[in-house]
């Protein structure tokens, strides 16, 4: 009986503490305060936005930059320039060249198409100063001889690490239409009759990137 009375006292005490705690809580909530907000703080990321010019415009991409006539004969050439521009807000350090949609018949016409001119167009100026680095590119791929066949050219990925200005940037932001490739493809004058009527095609995939990772691609110069 006495034990029960003590128990009751303890319970009442705990309730009292709980009520006081609540009151203290309400009291804190009601203290003076003032709130001000700095609104509209934002982060907006820039972008690299590549556009191509050369051949038939197809949205961001282009088609048929280099296309032979149907009566393309040994000794004749196809020449065109593909220009790039970065309409984004972030400079692109590197431009990487990969390949897609490679097709050919048998025999492989790509073996008889020789890249006789390869030059880079940088801010309106042709580089290298000789106007042609096809031989240098030839030395870096395939059988490393002086002749650069289309088959050798598309056998690897290439990368431009700057636009000959030495600033480490290939495509400046701001739509300067400032970098491109001038390429002449020549149908080998010594191609045999077995190549009559054969055809081949390729897609040149260009990636303008902020990264300096060359990812196994061979530098173009």
């Amino acid at each position, binding site marked *: 009986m006495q034990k029960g009375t003590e128990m009751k006292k303890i319970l009442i005490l705990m309730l009292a503490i709980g009520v006081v705690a609540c009151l203290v809580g309400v009291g804190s909530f009601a203290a003076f305060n003032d709130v001000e907000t700095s609104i509209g703080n934002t982060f907006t990321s*820039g*972008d*690299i*936005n*590549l*556009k*191509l010019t*050369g*051949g038939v415009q*197809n949205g*961001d*991409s*282009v*088609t*048929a*930059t*280099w*296309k*032979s*006539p*149907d*009566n*393309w*004969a*040994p*000794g004749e050439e*196809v020449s065109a320039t*593909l220009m*790039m521009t*970065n309409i*984004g807000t*972030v400079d*692109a350090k590197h431009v990487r060249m990969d390949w*897609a*949609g490679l097709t050919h018949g048998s025999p492989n*016409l790509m073996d*008889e*198409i020789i890249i006789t001119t390869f030059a880079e167009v940088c801010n309106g100026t042709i580089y290298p100063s000789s106007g042609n680095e096809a031989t240098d590119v030839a030395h870096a791929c395939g059988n490393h001889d002086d002749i650069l066949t*289309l088959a050798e050219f598309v056998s690897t990925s290439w990368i431009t690490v700057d636009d000959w200005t030495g600033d480490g940037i290939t495509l400046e932001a701001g739509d300067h239409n400032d970098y491109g490739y001038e390429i002449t*493809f020549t*149908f080998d004058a010594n*191609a045999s*009759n077995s*190549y*009559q*009527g*054969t*055809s*081949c*095609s*390729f*897609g*040149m*995939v*260009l*990636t*303008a*990137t*902020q*990264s300096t990772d060359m990812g196994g691609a061979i530098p173009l110069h």
Partner: protein
Amino acid sequence: MKKILMAMMLVALVAALVGVGVYAEFSDTETSTQNSFTAGTLNLTVDNYEGVSVPVYINETNLKPGDGGTVSMTLANVGSIDGEASIEADITAEGGGKNNYADLAASIDVSVTYAGTLKWSGKLVNLTVTVLGSLNASASEAVKIDWSLPSSAGNEVAGDSVVFNLVFTLNQ
């Protein structure tokens, strides 16, 4: 121990985030598609025949001095590349007759007319590769070959024979 584990997990998480950051550097890719090359064709027919189907045009026996004739054929470029036609008499066999000397090819007069213009005349034996003229893609031209064994030929050609191929070539 628990704190050490949590610290390690935090370090790993930060490392992972840094990794994602490097991987996600800005880039944009565009493609120049459908670049294509197709080789043209150079394809010659003779009276619409080619290969082993090209007929024999001259098969004369019992020739005698004063004999002659004309054969005609049409050359056509059924390919897509313009070309240049040529002709050659490729002698493959000769037989000596009475005097055991093969004199017939050196006696027969030949003249070759292409597209209405006389292009070559001389003895059959001398008709080596001779350019006739241009033969553009999808075009055709007439060839006329006049031959004769001159009346001045004598017994030296009696019993002689000559076998030759008429070789028409279309070069780019």
